[in-house]
């Protein structure tokens, strides 16, 4: 059990107004933390290693440009794999853009399609495929297609590993938004 990550990164002190507010939705509070623990303190690394989890998280958090969240996940990766952190920071620099964008597969929505960058990771093998997929999920989820999952399978990801990877990226897009929103709500008092 680790300290509540959302509280820590949103700067929520015990007994504060925001602490009391979060307590009104106790399951949401507890299980956002359980999601974090299930993803980052896993019982097994069979399908996704801890280094892979921390590397993807550092990348996704960096793409969101929230200093506290990006710093938290960079620190986790830095403790486990300092050399990899340097390379992940380069990936963040080349991957940064603004979203959501992308072409719709549905012809009826083609008028709303917008183009934007497609990330091409310079990392190796499984991790490169995971970073390209993470960037797709963060910035242009509407473009996701079956062929993107085939790229992950071809790179050695298992079906279960793809589910965990997808959950990890998608959960982080939730966590970073709750942190930013609560921080803003605290400041607006």
């Amino acid at each position, binding site marked *: 059990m680790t300290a509540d990550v959302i509280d820590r990164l949103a700067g929520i002190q015990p007994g504060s107004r925001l602490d009391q507010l979060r307590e009104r939705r106790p399951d949401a509070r507890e299980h956002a933390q*359980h999601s974090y623990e*299930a993803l980052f303190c896993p019982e097994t690394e069979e399908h996704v290693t801890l280094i892979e989890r921390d590397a993807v998280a550092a990348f996704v958090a960096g793409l*969101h440009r929230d200093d506290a969240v990006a710093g938290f996940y960079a620190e986790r990766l830095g403790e486990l794999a300092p050399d990899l952190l340097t390379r992940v920071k380069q990936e963040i620099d080349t991957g940064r853009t603004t*979203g959501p964008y992308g072409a719709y597969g549905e012809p009826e929505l083609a008028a709303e399609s917008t183009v934007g960058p497609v990330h091409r990771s310079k990392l190796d093998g499984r991790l490169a495929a995971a970073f390209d997929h993470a960037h797709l999920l963060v910035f242009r989820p*509407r473009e*996701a297609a079956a062929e993107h*999952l085939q790229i992950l399978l071809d790179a050695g990801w298992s079906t279960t590993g793809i*589910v965990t990877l997808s959950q990890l990226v998608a959960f982080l897009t939730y966590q970073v*938004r709750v942190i930013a929103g609560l921080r803003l709500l605290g400041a*607006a008092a």
Partner: protein
Amino acid sequence: MKFTQDRIGWRPWLAPLAEEELTDEHWEALVDKARAASPYFLLLARDPHVLHARTKTDNDIFYNADGGLPRAERELAATATSRRNGCVFCASVHARFASHYAKRPADVQRLLDEGVEAEQDERWRAVIDASAALAETPGALNAGHLAALRAAGLDDLAISDVIHSAAFFNWANRLMLSLGEPE
């Protein structure tokens, strides 16, 4: 397929677990046993701990009736987020809920047809604008969005509910969009 309030299906691109493969841990992760009929939840059950925590988070954000934002507007935030991110399936489900609870199907349909910029009354404008800003990466929610929510009559808990409902659909949209497709 356009954005719609019709009932549509969803087909996974990866193999879900078969019902006969489910262990006690998987059943617990599904939370509601009826979800074993859903290929989406049976696919997510491949990582049962995360599915369980995801579902408990989801249920508290949308079903906890202890004050805060009315259910209709939690569903509105989910619909606006799904519209902005481009998740036709998620938008269909939560547009139906928003229409049902608010009894405003025409306003919801305008959100689906014209997008998050479509004309709405002041209170829905504030909820939709905050949700759309939260869908941006990097995040674009600012103090002006919160002031508009407050001016529309939302208290701190209701504003927190907007934030959580919209944030949660950034999670949900990405799973639905990337693990399968509407049919």
